[in-house]
């Protein structure tokens, strides 16, 4: 019996060491990323004084690009979304909408709105996809193509778009997103201006809930009304403004949001296109491109820029938030699991040595450690293994540190883009940044743990997140 007691105590001690290490590793990395990003985003914001989009718009060497918009049962937003992207400020732009076997009226609404005609055109499948049912074109709108296909999921729809796409670069855009007019030009800047071979470029995704939209354009930015949405605004700021910027700065970009990103078409095709074996096809593609580049000895660059903005609707209800976060976490685990060769592999440079381990140990497995911590540390407390004052201090520290990071992201926003013009909204942001770690963080953690469990037990299906229709 005494032996078992010793084993138990030993295990508990080990776990306590683990959770303290996790705390310092995660928060230490986040703090470093925040410091890097504060400098980087501030400098980039200053650079915007001379890095205008004019030269790209007017230059004959700006490469043509295609926006690929996969859509499944998006009848409420699809026509307005297409109208909105048709107003995108970009020379030589093509738009491909892929209707992924919608069971609603999405296709008919597109056909009627844009007077599209079904044509029997040649389809050359360089990437294997489900069958294409029809290609719809209006000869008077030659830069818009709508494709109807058998349902095969978002990656399959994107692959159909890539097969039809004729331009060297394509931009993936979700059907419920609104692009700022010059966002694509700004997103293309790192590709056009960099002397390195930039094959992927990601921009910032901001939350549309609470904003006023007119004619497919965000005309008034304000904070949403619901607490869940407000917490997500803070989360997105943290994730995009200092998370991705920081990783980009050290050359460790591992995630580019598929809701809005530009890719080099040939590279994507050579890397195998969007695969179906994960539920986060965007991250999966980035990892796949990194692997392809290392295996084929290609020197490539991925870029993240904080000024091209795409607005998207976030879940307004807990159920939908749960679906989204479970999917993200499961996809993260799937992608990291199948690309384990990258872990601490110096061939992948910063991605293999820093970013991949961080995403594996902190973002993926860390959620389990943190979740278990909520049970194990009180257990240790009960058994007298941790003194009560220390336990309380540690809880306070973790909450305070979380708030510190969230407030840091609000400051970063205020130092640079100031998208929320009203003082009231700024105050709300600060309050929610402080409160985010009490309650909301734990709920999201619970969903993330569910995502990990789903990965472990082999679930694969995509949980559809439905929106309330903030976009008209």
């Amino acid at each position, binding site marked *: 019996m005494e032996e078992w007691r010793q084993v138990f105590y030993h295990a508990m001690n080990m776990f306590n060491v683990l959770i303290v290490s996790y705390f310092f590793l995660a928060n230490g990395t986040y703090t470093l990323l925040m410091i890097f990003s504060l400098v980087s985003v501030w400098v980039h914001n200053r650079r915007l004084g*001379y890095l205008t989009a004019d030269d790209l718009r007017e*230059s004959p060497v700006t490469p043509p690009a295609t926006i690929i918009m996969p859509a499944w049962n998006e009848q409420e937003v699809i026509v307005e979304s297409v109208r909105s992207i048709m107003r995108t400020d970009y020379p030589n732009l093509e738009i491909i909408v892929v209707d992924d076997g919608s069971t609603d009226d999405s296709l008919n609404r597109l056909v009627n709105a844009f007077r599209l005609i079904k044509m029997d*055109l*040649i389809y050359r499948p360089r990437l294997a996809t489900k069958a294409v049912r029809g290609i719809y074109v209006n000869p008077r709108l030659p830069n818009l193509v709508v494709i109807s296909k058998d349902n095969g999921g978002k990656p399959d729809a994107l692959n159909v778009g890539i097969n039809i796409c004729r331009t060297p670069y394509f931009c993936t855009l979700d059907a419920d997103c609104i692009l700022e007019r010059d966002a694509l030009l700004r997103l293309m800047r790192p590709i056009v201006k960099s002397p390195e071979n930039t094959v992927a470029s990601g921009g910032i995704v901001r939350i549309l809930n609470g904003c006023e939209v007119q004619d497919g354009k965000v005309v008034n930015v304000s904070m949403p009304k619901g607490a869940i949405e407000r917490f997500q605004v803070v989360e997105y700021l943290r994730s995009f403004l200092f998370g991705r910027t920081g990783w980009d700065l050290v050359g460790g970009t591992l995630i580019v949001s598929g809701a809005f990103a530009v890719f080099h078409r040939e590279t994507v095709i050579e890397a195998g296109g969007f695969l179906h074996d994960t539920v986060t096809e965007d991250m999966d593609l980035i990892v796949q491109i990194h692997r392809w580049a290392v295996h084929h000895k290609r020197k490539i660059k991925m870029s993240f820029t904080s000024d091209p903005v795409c607005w998207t609707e976030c879940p307004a209800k807990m159920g939908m938030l749960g679906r989204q976060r479970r999917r993200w976490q499961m996809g993260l685990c799937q992608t990291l699991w199948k690309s384990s060769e990258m872990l601490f592999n110096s061939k992948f440079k910063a991605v293999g040595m820093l970013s991949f381990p961080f995403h594996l140990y902190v973002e993926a497995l860390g959620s389990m450690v943190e979740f278990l911590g909520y049970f194990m540390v009180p257990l240790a407390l009960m058994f007298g293994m941790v003194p009560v004052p220390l336990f309380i201090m540690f809880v306070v520290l973790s909450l305070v540190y979380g708030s510190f990071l969230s407030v840091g992201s609000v400051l970063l926003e205020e130092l640079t883009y100031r998208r929320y013009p009203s003082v009231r909204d700024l105050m709300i942001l600060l309050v929610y940044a402080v409160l985010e770690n009490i309650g909301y963080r734990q709920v999201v953690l619970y969903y993330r743990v569910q995502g990990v469990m789903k990965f472990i037990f082999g679930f694969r299906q995509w949980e559809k997140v439905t929106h309330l229709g903030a976009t008209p």
Partner: protein
Amino acid sequence: MPFLIENIYEVVLAIIIFVLLGTGALVILTIARRQRRDKYFQRIDDLRQRYSPVIASILAQKIEYERGLEILRGISGMDRDYALEHLCLEKKPTPDQVPTLRKLCEDLGLVKLWQLRLRGGLDVASIRDALGRPEGVIQRVGTLSFLSRAKAADNLGIIKHQPSWKLLVRALGDPHADVQAIAVRSLASIQEPESFASLVSRLQEIIQKPSETLSLRTVKTALVSFPLSQMSALLPSLRHTHRRVRFFATDIIREVVERQAAWEEDFVLDAKNFPAELTEVFLESLAFDENPDVRARSSAVIANLSDARSTPVLLTLLEDAQWFVRMHAVRAMAKRKFLSQAPQVARRLTDSHWTVREAGARTLLVFGRVGSEQLAQHFLSTEDRYSREQIADEMQRAGLVPTLIAQYGAEREGASTRVIDLMVQMGKTSYLIWAIENNPSPEVRKKFLVHFGEEPDPQIRTWVSHVASTDADAALRTLAGELIRIPEPRRGEG
């Protein structure tokens, strides 16, 4: 044994206090920043309200220049120069406003300031600015001073300050990538002929030894913005031993020529606008270059030459071993002046590469009626399935099907009927059905029904059923009804 380290309480408590203080500091910074920015924008708005109409009037020459200048000189404050720069360059000037704006910036002392900043010198205005805006000093000292140099280079380009071109050429060697790139852009804006050679030499350097700071595209963008008259300076590059140097030089001329051709309807390259030496290089050397990319890009320039040798050279390129050379040559021939070459272009409809077939079909469509006839003739006569598919594709994309249906309605067993028949056999019926449904004439629908109503194509069968049940014309409904009752389609039996 509980996990403890010496003085852990003190350590954790210290961290908590430190983080709490840090969070508080961040909150205060955020609020203070908001207040300061609001104040700043208020001042800018105020200045804008008072002085933007003055600047607009000066640029529109609605008030006397000297009077306007005096008013603007009245702006004071620590951030005077920053505010003036902001007000003057707030809106992109139109080409006719540029000379006045340039003079205004010179007279206000802004140009000297920008030149000094581009040189990396410290100026009184910067010190003043630093006292007024802490950010100002960050931007002008140490590693971040490139922000100031790049902005200065940008401003000189916006006002097309020709005397600054040498300074901008010097900035091509700046240690920071942004300053180099903005200097290139400003040189392109100023278009000083003498700076062209510097840009070309920078291009050559980057091609031969890739730069870590400046992209080829940036330099190329600048070079293509120069006028056609400058292109003879590329002659040494066209003859360069490095194949990529030749390629970029050829491609730059192609861009310039194509831009000019898009502006002028009857544009041709002749002795007046294109030196004989360049013509010779294109016709005698580049069209036969060992680098296929050079051959490909040369075709667009050759197609615009008035020289009689250009057509035979293009026809040679049409038969090139590399598919993309053939594709570029076919695309280059998409001009009415090559109408007589339609049969040669039509031969490319059976090319082994689909992009060449596609380019061939599109070029023929540019030829108008002659090209369309050629296309239809080829469509009917060829045995090449891929060629037929490509032509059917282009006819649909170009929206020719309704015209085809209209011609079909008006003719007796002519080419249109045969083209439609072939499209039906190929299963290309979606657009045909749409065109028939949208043709107002019941006679055309009847004719189509009689001709094709028994075809096994599922879309035709659906359409016939639709006509049988919903068409406004009773005779058509009856006819369609009879056709739909036929158990097995006749063609299917055979």
